[in-house]
C-alpha cells in the first residue's frame, strides 16, 4: 500500500532550473515525459493517444520513446478507458488517460463517480485511485456543442475527486506532474483555446504565441505546482475576480479595458479550493466578480459566490457578480455571443463598482 501522506518529491534535477519556451501542449507532453522517465508505473493511453500522439498532439512521441506498453491506443469507450485505469491504479500503476474532449466524459461517469472517487473510502484506505484523467475543455475554437463544453462543476460536486484547470504552460506542467504524483483521482481539464497561446476573448485579433509570454517559459525538468494553491494572476485593489482557465485572460483584458484595478485570482485547482487566498482578497477589495465559461446555473461560480458570501459577507460592498456562459448548449452559429468576452466581463466589473 502506498503512503497516503507522501511528501512531495524535491526537485533535485538541475534541468528544472533551465527554461524553454513551450506551448501548453508541449508543457503537458513534457510533464508526462518527465514522469514516465522518473516512474515506470506511469502509463499513458486513450483514443488516438499512442501511435498518432493525440488529436491535439499532447502525447506525440511518447509511444516512440517509451514503447507500446506505456503509451497506447484505447477503443472508443470512455467507460472502458477510465474503468481499466481505476483497476491499474488500485494495483500500483499511475495511469494518465485522455478523454479526447471533455464533452465525451459522460459514458465514464459511473467509473469516475462510483469507482475512482470512492475507492479510498470504500476500502477504508486500503486502495487508492492515483489516476489522472486529462480532458481538453472549453470553447472559442468553433467546435460547437460537442467540442466546447466546460463540465468542471460535474466533478467538483463529487467527493473524492480533485479538479484542476491550468491557464498557462508553466502551471499546466507543474500541475500535471503534481496530479500524476497525487494518490487521489485527478480530473485535469485543459482549456484547449489556450493550447497554443493566451486568449483574451478578442477573437478578431491575431493569435498571440506562448513564446512571447513569461508563462510560456517552462522548466525542462521536474517541478510541481501545488494542487491546492491559487495564484494572484494580477494584483489589484478595486475588486476580486475569481476565475480559471481561459477566463483568466479575458478578465485581464476586461480590467485593462475598463481601467478597473481588478485583482484576478487564477484558482488553478477548483477542488481542493484555496479559500484562504479568496477570502483574503475579497476582504481587501469588498467586491467580487466570478467568471467562468461554463453555463451559469449550478456552475462552479455558484459555489464560489456562496463561499464568498459565507466567509466575507460583512466585507461586501456590492452584490457578487457572476459572468458565465448562457444556459444553452454551446452554439455553433453564435459562438461569440455565448462566450463571455471582455465586454461582458467588463460590464460586470462596472456593475460591481457602481453598486
Amino acid at each position: 500500500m502506498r503512503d497516503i501522506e507522501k511528501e512531495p518529491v524535491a526537485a533535485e534535477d538541475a534541468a528544472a532550473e533551465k527554461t524553454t519556451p513551450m506551448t501548453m501542449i508541449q508543457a503537458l507532453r513534457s510533464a508526462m515525459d518527465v514522469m514516465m522517465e522518473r516512474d515506470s508505473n506511469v502509463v499513458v493511453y486513450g483514443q488516438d493517444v499512442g501511435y498518432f500522439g493525440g488529436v491535439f498532439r499532447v502525447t506525440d512521441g511518447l509511444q516512440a520513446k517509451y514503447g507500446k506498453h506505456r503509451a497506447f491506443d484505447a477503443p472508443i469507450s470512455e467507460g472502458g478507458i477510465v474503468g481499466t485505469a481505476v483497476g491499474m491504479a488500485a494495483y500500483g500503476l499511475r495511469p494518465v488517460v485522455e478523454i479526447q474532449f471533455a464533452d465525451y466524459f459522460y459514458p465514464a461517469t459511473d467509473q469516475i463517480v462510483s469507482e475512482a472517487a470512492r475507492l479510498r473510502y470504500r476500502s477504508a484506505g486500503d486502495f487508492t485511485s492515483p489516476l489522472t484523467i486529462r480532458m481538453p475543455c472549453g470553447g472559442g475554437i468553433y467546435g460547437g456543442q460537442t467540442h466546447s463544453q466546460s463540465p468542471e462543476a460535474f466533478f467538483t460536486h463529487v467527493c473524492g475527486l480533485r479538479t484542476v484547470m491550468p491557464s498557462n504552460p508553466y502551471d499546466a506542467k507543474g500541475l500535471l506532474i503534481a496530479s500524476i504524483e497525487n494518490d487521489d483521482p485527478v480530473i485535469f481539464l485543459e482549456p484547449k483555446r489556450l493550447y497554443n497561446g493566451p486568449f483574451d476573448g478578442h477573437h478578431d485579433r491575431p493569435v498571440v504565441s506562448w513564446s512571447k509570454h513569461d508563462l510560456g517559459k517552462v522548466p525542462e525538468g521536474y517541478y510541481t505546482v501545488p494542487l491546492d494553491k491559487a495564484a494572484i494572476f494580477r494584483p489589484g485593489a478595486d475588486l476580486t475576480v475569481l476565475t480559471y482557465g481561459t477566463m483568466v485572460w479575458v478578465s485581464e483584458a476586461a480590467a485593462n479595458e475598463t481601467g478597473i484595478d481588478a485583482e484576478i485570482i487564477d484558482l488553478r485547482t477548483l477542488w481542493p479550493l484555496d479559500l484562504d487566498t479568496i477570502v483574503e482578497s475579497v476582504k481587501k477589495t469588498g467586491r467580487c466578480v466570478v467568471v467562468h465559461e461554463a453555463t451559469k446555473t449550478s456552475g462552479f461560480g455558484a459555489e464560489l459566490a456562496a463561499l464568498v458570501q459565507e466567509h466575507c459577507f460583512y466585507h461586501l460592498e456590492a452584490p457578487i457578480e457572476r459572468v458565465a456562459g448562457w444556459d444553452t448548449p454551446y452554439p455553433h452559429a453564435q459562438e461569440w455571443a455565448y462566450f463571455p468576452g471582455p465586454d461582458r466581463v467588463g460590464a460586470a466589473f462596472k456593475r460591481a463598482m457602481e453598486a
Partner: protein
Amino acid sequence: MGIHVIKMPDVGEGIAECEVVAWRVQPGDAVKEDQILADVMTDKATVEIPSPVHGTVMALGGKVGESLAVGAELVRLEIEGAGNFKGDAAKPAAASAGASAPAADEPADVPHGFVPEPQRVAAGAASVSAAPSAEGVRDPGAPAARHPAPASSGSGASSRAIFRDANEKPLAAPAVRKRAWDMGIELQYVGGSGAAGRITHADLDNFIAGRQRGHSAQSGADSRYAELQGEEAVPLIGLRRKIAEKMQLSKRQIPHFTYVEEVDVTELEALRTQLNARYGAERGKLTLLPLLMRAVVLAIRKFPEVNARFDDQAGIVTRYQPVHLGIATQTDAGLMVPVIRNAEARDPWSSAKEIVRLAEAARTGKAARDELSGSTITITSLGPLGGIVSTPVINHPEVAIVGVNRILERPVVRNGGLVPRKLMNLSSSFDHRVIDGMVAAEFIQTVRGYLESPATLFVE
C-alpha cells in the same frame, strides 16, 4: 476629417433665443445621426435637438442655463469627410474647456496578452525551488489599504438627511452594516445618499461626525433629532425660471383684487353623476372643470371685459370674442398653462377630451408652442387639494383668473332646518386697474348662478 457645426435652430415662430436646459452629450462623446444632443427651451416648450450627422463632439456652445441666440453655434462635431465649417478650426467655441480627448481611460500600450513579470504573484510557494514547502509565502508587499474605500464615496455623500418611516427598512451593503453594527449605530436613523437610497460609508461617516458634533447626550444615535448641516443652492433654470419671471411680472405690475364666493354645487354634482351614468361610457366621464368652463364662457357674454389682455405700455385693453381658456396644469417640470382654444365652441365633453389631451401633452413635454400660449382668461384648480381659499396670480397679460377650491359637504340652513349641501368656493383674482370690484363680483355671481342652476348651462 471635417468639422460640422450645428446651430441653434429656429424652433418656433418669433423666437430669438433658446435656453439650454440639458446637455445630453459631452465633448469627446461619439454621437450617431438622430442622437439627441441637447434639450433647449423656448418660452414654455422644451425641444430636443438631434444630431444631423455621425461624429465626435468637439465642443459645446454654452452652459446649462445659458440662452443662445437662434443661429448661434450649439455643438461642434468632428466628422468623417468634409464638414460644413470653413473657419478657423482652432478657434474654440464658448465651452470647449472640457474638450480634451478622454485619454485617461485608454489602457497603456502594452503588447497584446503580455503580463509584466511583477503582476503575477504566486499565492503559493514558488514550486521551481528545490524544496517546495506546502505552506507557501504570501507576498509581504500585499496592498496595504485595508479600510473600505468604495468607489462611490468620491462623489461625496449628500449632507441631506433622509428621514425613513419607522417600518421602512434601511438599505446598505453588508460592509456598511457591519461597520454600523460594530459602532452600535442603528442604520434606521442614518440617511442614505447612494443608489436607491442606500446608506454608503460616507453617509455613515457623516452620521458619526454629526453625532460627535451634536447633542448626543439627548438624541443618542437617532438622526430624527440630529443637528442638520449644509445647504443646497438650486439654480433656477428652464421652465422654473420662466415661471418665476412670469409670476414676478404679474405680481409687480398687476394690482390683484381677489374675490371669494361660495357656490352650492349639489345640483351640479347630481347632474354630473347622471350624465356620467348615462353617457360616460360613450362620451367619456365629465369632471367639474368642463362644466365650470361652460359657465365661465356663458358669463363672459355678459362681462366681456374679463376676457381680455391688457397692454399697459400702450394703454390698450384688447377684448376677445373667442374664449381661449388657459388651464393651469402641474407638470413634473413645473406649472404650465395649456390653452383650450375657442372654448365657447365646445360642449362639455369636447372640452373634457381637449383638457385631457392638452394636459397629457404638457406633462410629456409634447405640447406645441401655440398650445401653451394665447389664452385670454385662465382657470386654476388644485382639485382635491384646492383648499378653502386661494389667491390666484393672474396669468399676465390677462385680466382675470378663476380659482377652484375643494368641494365639501356642509350643513346649510334652509327653511329653518339644516340640510347637507355640497359647497365649493371660487377664489378669483382680477386686474383691478381695468376690472372694478363690482364687475368682478357680478361676473362671479353670474358664474355661480349657472353652476347652482345647472340646467341653464344647457338651456340658454
